[in-house]
């Protein structure tokens, strides 16, 4: 009797011990950084972007504020090392330890012409086979986001519709306006890049706000700082990689401060020049400007962009009208990361004197009214989730909800989406391990039942 009780106690202890151990160790062993597969998981999965907007009938202003531990003011550099100049580019996979990738904020705008954008935001632009996704072979040209209807097969990036059909779609407003502010390549000259997403991510027509400063033929920089001007403390690669490049450094090379590169200058080991020369962008590409260059202060970027409400170019820009309703989706790049290592938002409704999640304040001409409160927009790391997967009933239980146009925010919150995004990066490994866990835990329960049936006693059996 005593022995039986001891066995019973042992069995219960083994079962309970395994349950506790399972609780403590679950979810370990699979999810980890794997740079070879382009998998790097950020420490923070979610964050918050604060936004405000104002308009005066002619101009619309957007103000963005987000937390960033440190500013990243440099994006690719030319370094003098061992008697030669070399182009050093930032990492395209995860945060760059050498801090060679700039900070950014981007905003996609739609006026209701792109079906499903108001419900799923940027997810609809993530087709299969985009650059930096696991298993996608490297291509010379970046395979960027695109809208599904620009393909005859929306899930195949290579099935682009003929030019005349693409033109028809664009004339119908089937594109997203994409504003892109960059701390190194546009901010110093108080501008942002005006681009759009249709058949691909494309810049608007006009001159780019930057050109390359590296001459691949000669292997030398094209321009250097005008020694006659005070452009700030010179950069060295050590300063950049230590994350010490600040606003008082010569972190950008403006066309107006540049002179042709002189190899005869007494260059020192580690001397560093920006990899691009900044200039005033022109044409539709230069529609977005800033009242003044933004500054990072006390752990936050505070960026204000402005644009004519009607740029006169409805094929490249979404036109804002008083009383109009729009949908926006935001992306924040920080921690010296680029490509898909950003924080994105779900779509946010935006109104000009219309009820919406985010409402612009009507202002006096030329005087944006910032007196209202910030609108807090949760942003999250999206992982690797493609539109193809989301709309496939074999791979996403919610595919039918998408077919029924149920908004993503109805079913998921941002943290949940971030966690799902990470799980998708290890989808098959986790599924396999889960099946094993299911089988082994079932075995344990059956074993417990068997053990209990064998060890329990009827009183008369024991007397």
């Amino acid at each position, binding site marked *: 009797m005593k022995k039986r009780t001891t066995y019973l106690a042992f069995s219960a202890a083994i079962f309970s011990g395994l349950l506790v151990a399972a609780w*403590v160790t679950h979810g370990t062993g699979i999810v980890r950084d794997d740079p070879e597969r382009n998998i790097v998981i950020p420490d923070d999965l979610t964050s918050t972007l604060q936004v405000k907007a104002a308009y005066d009938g002619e101009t619309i202003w957007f103000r963005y504020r987000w937390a960033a531990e440190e500013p990243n003011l440099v994006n690719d550099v030319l370094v003098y090392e061992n008697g030669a100049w070399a182009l050093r580019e930032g990492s395209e996979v995860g945060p760059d330890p050498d801090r060679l990738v700039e900070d950014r904020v981007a905003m996609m705008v739609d006026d209701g012409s792109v079906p499903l954008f108001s419900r799923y935001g940027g997810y609809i632009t993530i087709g299969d086979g985009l650059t930096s996704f696991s298993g996608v072979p490297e291509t010379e040209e970046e395979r960027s986001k695109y809208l599904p209807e620009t393909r005859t097969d929306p899930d195949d990036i290579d099935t682009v519709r003929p030019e005349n059909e693409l033109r028809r779609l664009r004339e119908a407003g089937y594109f997203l306006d994409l504003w892109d502010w960059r701390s190194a390549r546009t901010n110093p000259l108080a501008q942002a890049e005006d681009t759009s997403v249709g058949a691909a991510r494309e810049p608007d027509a006009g001159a780019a706000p930057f050109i390359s400063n590296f001459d691949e033929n000669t292997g030398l920089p094209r321009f250097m700082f005008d020694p006659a001007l005070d452009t700030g403390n010179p950069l060295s690669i050590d300063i950049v990689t230590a994350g010490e490049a600040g606003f008082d450094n010569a972190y950008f090379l403006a066309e107006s401060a540049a002179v042709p590169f002189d190899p005869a200058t007494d260059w020192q080991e580690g001397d560093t020049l920006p990899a691009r020369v900044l200039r005033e962008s022109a044409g539709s590409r230069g529609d977005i400007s800033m009242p003044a260059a933004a500054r990072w202060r006390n752990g936050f970027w505070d960026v204000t962009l402005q644009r004519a409400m009607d740029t006169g170019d409805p094929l490249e820009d979404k036109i804002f009208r008083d009383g109009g309703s729009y949908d926006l989706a935001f992306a924040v790049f920080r921690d010296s990361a680029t490509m898909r290592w950003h924080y994105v938002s779900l779509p946010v409704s935006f109104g000009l004197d219309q009820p919406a999640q985010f409402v612009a304040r009507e202002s006096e001409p030329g005087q944006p009214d910032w007196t209202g409160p910030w609108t807090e927009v949760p942003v999250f790391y999206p992982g690797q989730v493609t539109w193809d997967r989301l709309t496939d*009933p074999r791979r996403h239980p919610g595919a039918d909800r998408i077919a029924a146009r149920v908004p993503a925010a109805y079913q998921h919150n941002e943290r949940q989406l971030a966690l*799902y995004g990470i799980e998708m990066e290890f989808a098959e490994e986790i599924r396999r391990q889960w099946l094993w866990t*299911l089988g082994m835990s079932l075995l344990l329960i059956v074993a417990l039942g068997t053990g209990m049936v064998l060890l329990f006693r009827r009183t008369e059996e024991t007397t």
Partner: protein
Amino acid sequence: MTVAFLDRYETSKVKDQKMERASSLLPAARTGLAAVALLAFGTGAAFAHGTDGGGVEVALEGAPSFSISPVYHVLVVHFPVALWMTAALLIFFRVFSDSQLAVRLQKSVWPLILLGSLAGFVAYGLGLFIYPWSAITQSPLGRNHIMLATWTLSYWTVMGVLGYRYRRFLFEGAQRWVTFVLTLIGTAVVTITGTLGGSLNGTPSLVTRSLGTLGWEVYMTFYLPTWMLVAFGLGAVAIVALGVMGSRTRA
């Protein structure tokens, strides 16, 4: 003569006992039949409902597959939950009370549990046909719900077998406290399974958030590292071995 009389007496006593047992099983059998009929009706309705009007539309080319509206899983799943939870309540009452009422109520524990398991199998089956297997097993929340539902169903079935085999002896001596702990675990897995189902349907409860606080982020798949799977296997072998050794001490 006396021996013959005693033989007849014993025979008639055994017959009486058998009749008594049979009559005591009758209500349970009737309840079981009624439950089966109800569940068959529910399942039939689910199939008849098809995918129209709120069901999950799944059209997979080249993949023989069908789906059942989730409303029937949601409807049927309340049967096992109610039956198991009632059984748990009666067990807790009996563990802490030797009153006549507690002892009488204890008799309905195993029928309640096994009826719950029967309903549980139907609910489990209906749940598996809401989404294609390939899809639901890609969803972390879906995987977790399946995992917990499997645990719940198998665990309570084990409890039902134990209850059927040992009846009132479940509450004798040390077995009373083992029964208590096993039932506590049973109520926990039912609760978690239910809350995950709610979360899967887009209505997470405070329980979902509490699990996060306790160390399980339910929006990530519950899986064990390989070494823990090995430990589970060894643990299973050890528990059965202890059972076999214990059963030999009786003989």
